[in-house]
């Protein structure tokens, strides 16, 4: 990996306060092209705040955000998108009662000119949308007019991710893309994430599923109470170390010791 080129996105000591509550404390991390950064943390650890800063929903209270080495200030999600940062939310990715083609081009509708009118080119929209999701292995959908509600949760995530990539995303922020999915469906999404990585996209993969994170991540950042609790590269931690950290570290160890104590008592009782 070329370490001398600046990262696609870099956060430097970013903090965020909401009415006196500190949601993020001097968080630093960076995402490079073709890299999957797994962002882990329990509920309320500050993951969503971090995403919202990256995607232009919130401005940081302090700290710096850089895109390809240049400091930026995202005032709206539009700014983030213009900088090539696309966010795919778990529930908000697609609209079930709208067709595949309409969903795919929502907010960037292709239009044909008819005299003074600009008309939505649904034929183009449907064709391109189908091509794109086919490229990621969704072949079951054969009609661009089909409602997205007919697709499975995994397929919808794929649609949303394919859309972001089609519109030139350099960095994809995936917010809990697998958490609502069954094993098979989650697998589809994980494969897609690897595929996106292969195409040179930087990915922020937010999850609280350690196994999914370990399956695809190159680098890992664990947030606890709004601060980076640990940051490491693949293979620098074991699955159980990471699980420990996620579960609350020492508290969990204490609990495990206590449980082990009960086990010991039970087995010595058996032996006697």
């Amino acid at each position, binding site marked *: 990996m070329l370490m001398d080129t600046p990262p696609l996105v870099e956060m430097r000591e970013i903090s965020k306060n909401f009415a006196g509550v500190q949601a993020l404390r001097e968080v630093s991390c960076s995402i490079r092209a073709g890299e999957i950064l797994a962002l882990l943390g329990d509920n309320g650890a500050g993951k969503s705040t971090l995403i919202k800063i990256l*995607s232009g929903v919130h401005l940081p209270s302090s700290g710096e955000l850089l895109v390809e080495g240049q400091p930026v200030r995202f005032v709206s*999600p*539009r700014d983030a*998108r213009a900088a090539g940062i696309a*966010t795919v*939310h778990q529930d*908000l*990715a*697609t*609209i*079930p*009662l*709208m067709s595949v083609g*309409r969903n795919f*081009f*929502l*907010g*960037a*509708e292709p*239009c044909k000119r008819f005299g003074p*009118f*600009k*008309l*939505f080119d*649904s034929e183009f929209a449907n064709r391109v949308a189908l091509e794109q999701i086919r490229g990621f292995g969704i072949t079951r959908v*054969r*009609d661009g*007019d*089909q*409602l997205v*509600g*007919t697709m499975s949760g995994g397929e919808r995530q794929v649609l949303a991710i394919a859309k972001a990539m089609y519109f030139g995303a350099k960095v994809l922020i995936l917010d809990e893309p697998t958490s609502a999915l069954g094993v098979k469906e989650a697998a589809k999404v994980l494969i897609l994430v690897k595929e996106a990585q292969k195409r040179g996209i930087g990915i922020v993969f937010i999850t609280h599923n350690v196994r999914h994170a370990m399956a695809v991540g190159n680098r890992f950042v664990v947030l606890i109470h709004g601060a980076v609790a640990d940051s490491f590269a693949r293979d620098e931690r074991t699955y159980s170390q990471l699980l420990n950290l996620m579960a609350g570290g020492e508290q969990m160890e204490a609990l495990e010791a206590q449980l082990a104590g009960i086990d010991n008592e039970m087995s010595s009782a058996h032996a006697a």
Partner: protein
Amino acid sequence: MTEVSASSEPWRKRGRAPTRRLRRLLRRPEAGALFAAIAVYLFFAWATRETNFVSLNGTAAWLNSAAELGIISVAVGLLLIAGEFDLSIGSILGASSIALAIGTRLFHIDIWIMVALVLAGSALIGFLNGLIVERTRLPSFIVTLATLLGVSGAGLGFSRLLTNTTTVSMTTPPLAQAVFAGRLGQANIAILWWILITAAAALVLGKTAFGNWIYATGGNLEAARTSGVPTARVKIALFVATAVASSLVGVIQAIEFHSGNASNGQGYVFQAPIVAVIGGVLLGGGYGSAAGIFLGCVIYGVISVGVFYTGWNTDWIQLFLGGLLLAAVMANSYFRHLALSAR
């Protein structure tokens, strides 16, 4: 697993085209309304076989009844699809009607200028409705209920202040008479307005980026926003559209009846959303079509005039509409389910 031909398999497509087309139709938002319209029409055609419901005059009668409601319902339906409600249509209609009469009769303002003023004033009320809903995030039901009362009170109050009454007669020059209240046989020109406005709405919904934004705004506000849809602009534009549509009907009625009446239009407050829902618009937003709303109005027209032609007491109209509304909501829910089922 059901069999549907793929476009890459032309030999199957040819053989299955009719079923394919039917399946597509069944998945449209107006599928239920289409069957209901046919059923209701056939029923009344049969029930009124002694009288002349199925005649040029009978047809003109139910089209007339559907048209004025239809002009408002199309706009209200689009707003419903975007996820908002507008009750203020009821009093905007009456206020427009009385303002037109007072302006032309009392102040001798040219009818065209007055029509423009009335429509612009209503557009402003619609704009304010939209702005308040957007800024306060209050439910539009409450906000426009307040506007409904406020505009109604203002219309009645000013009318009484200026003329001592709430109905003011007016005369209209021939051209304006023809444009807003012309007749061909028994058929009002409002039918033409209704069809044109419905066609325009169908074009906007089906064939423009703005139409896509309307569906998205009502379907999932957050998703629409994160996709870069200017949801506030979409909603405000539609609040303006509902206000202007009801104002137009106010103008049409004032010219048609040669009199402005400040209390006109209150009946539309719920009729308009009802026919939109009968026509397949989802009350929660995100789903529906202009064709469906059109059919909803046709159903309303056929029932209200059909009952009259049967000679039954017109009290039955409400019962019919109530039953139909319930049936429509259930049928539409079924058809939506079908549209969401795997093919």
